[in-house]
């Protein structure tokens, strides 16, 4: 569609056109609203949102927190534009039982459309590239971990997790991990699909029926872990949770020795 009826009729450079748009009072007022909204989302994304999330106990979880903050910041201006302009029009609504007079008849504005596409593509590109970089560094870390990793075989069964430490010859219903040692989880399900989710470690993968999946991470903070199932797995899905601990290497060795008898008390 042509832009004969464009918002701005002059044909100077796009830069001048843009400047002309911003000279309009209504654009500036709407933009002010937008800035306010952007600021609010900045605060939510940067501080309020992360405060809801549990303590990060691995670099994976740390990077997820960072990523969520950055994504919120990227989207804050988008929220600002959309909400700023809609708040402005809402405040200038027409009241009454009869329809308002016809508004201006412009049908498009190629400058605005073009700018919109470019900016949204750019923001999208930032998100994509950032995500790919994070993924890449995660898989580089995986390669690093492989050398020195402690293997934990995770078995999901309806409706409990069990853990086998082949290196130590220990089995447990709790996930005990030494700090700062890479750990490689080999996950399998003996019945339906589950999803292995040690919440504070920021990793997750499905436990598929009789098919092994692998994830790795390095716990770097002492504390309790919640291990949950994130895939509906039947009657007691809600109760398919267990606890875990990240402990010092010494504590871990003590725990291993105490449980090598074949049972956990």
């Amino acid at each position, binding site marked *: 569609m042509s832009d004969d009826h464009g918002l701005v009729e002059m044909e100077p450079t796009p830069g001048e056109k843009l400047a002309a748009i911003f000279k309009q009072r209504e654009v500036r007022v709407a933009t002010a609203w937008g800035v306010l909204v952007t600021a609010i989302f900045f605060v939510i994304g940067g501080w309020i949102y992360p405060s809801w999330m549990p303590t990060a106990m691995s670099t994976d979880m740390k990077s997820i927190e960072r990523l969520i903050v950055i994504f919120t910041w990227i989207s804050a201006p988008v929220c600002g534009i959309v909400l700023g302009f809609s708040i402005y029009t809402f405040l200038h609504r027409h009241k009454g039982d009869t329809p308002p007079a016809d508004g201006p008849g412009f049908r498009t504005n190629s400058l605005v459309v073009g700018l919109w596409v470019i900016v949204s593509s750019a923001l999208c590109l930032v998100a994509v590239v950032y995500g790919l970089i994070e993924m890449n560094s995660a898989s580089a870390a995986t390669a690093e971990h492989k050398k020195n990793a402690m293997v934990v075989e995770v078995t999901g*069964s*309806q409706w409990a997790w069990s853990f*086998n430490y082949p290196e130590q010859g220990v089995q447990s219903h709790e996930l005990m991990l030494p700090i700062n040692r890479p750990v490689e989880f080999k996950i399998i399900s003996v019945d339906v699909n589950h999803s292995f989710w040690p919440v504070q470690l920021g990793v997750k993968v499905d436990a598929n029926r009789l098919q092994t999946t692998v994830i790795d991470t390095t716990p770097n903070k002492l504390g309790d872990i919640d291990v949950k199932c994130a895939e509906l797995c*039947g*009657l007691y899905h809600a*109760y398919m*949770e267990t606890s875990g601990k990240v402990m010092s290497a010494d504590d871990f060795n003590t725990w291993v020795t105490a449980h090598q008898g074949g*049972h*956990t*008390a």
Partner: protein
Amino acid sequence: MSGKESTMTASKRALSAVVGVLLMVAVVGVVGFTLHSASADPHKKLYATKTAETIVVDGKTYPKATITMGVYADTAQAKEMGYNTINKKDYVQYGPSSHIVLPAHTYVTMTIHGYDGGEKLNAPFFGKVVGTVGGTMNVDGVDVTEIPADQVQHTFTIHSLPSSNRDPLFVNIPLQHVDEGDNGFLPTKDPGTNYKGHTMTFSFITGGAGEYVWNCEYPCGDGTYAKFGAAMSAYGYMSGKVSVA
């Protein structure tokens, strides 16, 4: 949908609105009530019996309590054994109730009579005795720490949601299966039959008050997938609640 203009007065319309809305709220309420009563816990809870004795474990003194359950191959067997099951379907089941109540900070000694056969556990881990005092249980007078994965009839596994204000409680008891050859494997109408089965006795210590759940980890339902259908997927047969109060 007549073509007439409405002649309803404002007050009449308001009344109609209030009545209409209340009526619909009531309908939703009735649906809720029906569902609630259909899914209520068994009417009878099974309470542990407190005894006067106390016991010292790891330097701490605990009062003692006992509780007894049975696990039956089907409703007929449960009835034969003297339990009036409230369950509707003819499934393998624990009795006499699926909701057990235990006293807090107590040394609980639990006895489970198992009368069922068995094949093999899906997850061999649940062949181990976990969470009992001393890490053992007593099967027909013999102390054991685990039962081979292919000799289990059912398990009694207590677990819970991890949360900040509740003491952890995890107990896993595998029940020794009854061989086909053993006398009393299946119920008969013959009143002279002596049901032998196996008797598992074990003790564990409860923490503070809290709600827990128990279920069986042995594949004893039906279905082609890991036999966790039917009885295993229906609440109150091979699964239930544990209230520590």
